[in-house]
């Protein structure tokens, strides 16, 4: 127990409100006029359960039937031209400006470095919090 904790306990003991002698009798007479309530319970209702189940089953049946009604269509034939041929000119111009041939490692290295730093920060913060919690409680 540290000094602050000791002072808090001591000062709490110095707070001594007098309980009026008639207080217990006042509460007792109030309690006699009160009816204790049973804990709230949800009663099981068969008709409600049956109605809910039937509604659910009917909804599922309607959904399955409506989805299968149209039948399976053949996939549309692919166009004869290749993707490269179908690409508009402005995209080709844009493609020339971007380093699309860069290696994956070049792009992910800064992110990996950042992740490493964040992890180490997190670890340090966790250690500090654990240390303080041990100290206090």
């Amino acid at each position: 127990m540290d000094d602050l904790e000791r002072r808090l306990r001591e000062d709490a003991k110095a707070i001594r409100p007098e309980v009026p002698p008639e207080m217990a009798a006042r509460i007792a007479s109030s309690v006699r006029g009160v009816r204790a309530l049973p804990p709230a319970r949800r009663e099981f209702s068969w008709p409600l359960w049956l109605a809910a189940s039937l509604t659910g089953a009917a909804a599922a049946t309607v959904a399955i039937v409506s989805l299968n009604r149209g039948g399976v269509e053949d996939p549309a034939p692919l166009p004869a031209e290749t993707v490269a041929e179908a690409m508009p000119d402005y995209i080709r111009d844009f493609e020339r400006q971007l380093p699309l041939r860069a290696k994956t490692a070049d792009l992910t290295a800064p992110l990996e470095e950042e992740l490493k730093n964040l992890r180490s920060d997190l670890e340090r913060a966790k250690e500090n919090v654990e240390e303080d919690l041990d100290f206090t409680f």
Partner: protein
Amino acid sequence: MRDVRPRQQERFEKTVPTDAELVAQTIRGSTTSFEHLVERYQARLLRFLITRCTSRADAEDAMQDAFINAYRYLESYDPRWQFSTWLYRIAIRNAAENAKRQATVAADAAEDAPDVLEECIQDAERENLWLTAKRLLSQDAYTAMWLRYAEDMPVKEVARALGRPQSWTRVALLRARRRLAMALGDDDAAGKESKAYG
């Protein structure tokens, strides 16, 4: 010579019913058992409510409401909790509702009224730390401090009484202690605790 003290103590413990026993007897219809619970907790509960309410009358009303509600819903009480935790939870909720109701009505009157907590402090050679805490801390943090250090509740029970997660309660206690330590000029304690939060 035989030592009779343990036997006397055992007999004494047998004659004093526990909270759980009194609750069970009340549920079976004994209002006298509930009156024992009232006698057991009324002083502690009033002391706690005095620190939260603006007047003594409000604190007494809040205490009466807490006991009546506890009796009314006693069958919903979960014996895995301590009875005191459950009672404090009801009292905290009642006091908060009363305060909200009165906030709009008596906002001006409360400023001029003397602090009820100050009136109840005895043997004061210096300012009571709970008065300082009341000025500095939020109501939830203050309540957490009170339950932990004045009522000696474990953190788990404090969290339950407040209806908050344990992690929140731990952090609130830590921050409250840091603020109090700083107010008291205890740089060592404040510095050590503030390390976790930069």
